[in-house]
């Protein structure tokens, strides 16, 4: 069961994923944790450029970094992706509430004495 998804967080996740480089970085991290140096190697990018991408992924909660001061390895956190892949779930509470009202309204409509009082 997915909780109500925070819209802002969802947008952040989408924004973080809207880059081929960042998706490739996540793809690499799916194989295991890696340092910024490791991650930069396959791309023709400077370390600061890669760091920037990693910061975006960190903010979106897709990457967590170790605390070792020297190289702080990056690891994948796939949890926000579940929210993205099930974003339709955010509509569930809205529809459930609608159908509760529908139920109530149908009851009103079918009560002969009251009829449509609204």
């Amino acid at each position, binding site marked *: 069961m997915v909780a109500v998804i925070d819209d802002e967080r969802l947008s952040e996740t989408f924004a973080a994923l809207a880059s*081929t480089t960042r*998706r490739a970085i*996540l793809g690499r991290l*799916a194989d295991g944790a890696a340092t910024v140096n490791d991650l930069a190697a396959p791309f023709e990018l400077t370390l600061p450029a890669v760091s920037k991408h990693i910061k975006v992924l960190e903010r979106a909660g897709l990457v967590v970094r170790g605390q070792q001061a020297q190289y702080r390895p990056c690891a994948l956190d796939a949890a926000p*992706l579940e929210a*993205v*892949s099930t974003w*339709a779930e955010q509509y569930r509470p809205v529809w459930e*509430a609608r159908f509760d009202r529908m139920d*109530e309204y149908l009851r009103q409509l079918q009560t002969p004495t009251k009829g449509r009082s609204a």
Partner: protein
Amino acid sequence: MSKQNGSGDDLRIERTFDAPVTLVWQLWTDPEHFKAWYGPEGASIPTATMDVRVGGPRRVCMEVHTPNGPMQMWFTGEYREVVEHRRLVYTESMSDEHGSVQAADADAHGATEVRVDFEDLGRRTRMTLIHAGIPQDSPGAAGWEMALDQLTTQLARASRG
């Protein structure tokens, strides 16, 4: 999940109502009835127009009360399938009041499709709602969906070890 199409993230809700299918159908297709239940909580529907036939336009305005006064949101779309008392399918996108779809919404989520199946159980009606995201028409958006699908599959596999 029993039913999936597209990216497989459809919302599916099934409910049975103590009312004949003709009446439940009216609640979806008659704007006056529709306004009475659609909400959502704290919102009202000042305008709803529904041309209930395949290709017919559908427009709904939702008004929410905020500390800064009322705020209106418009939704537009068209009917894709209309089988009286059986099935209703329509698309929906956020739009401005003239019905033009907002770019921001098209980018973030695209249009959505709402499908309602009605099953006549005599004095009762079983209703199944499927609310799905539908891919954008542009090749770029389709590619993006595909990339996202591949990535989530790959990552889900990785996180299972």
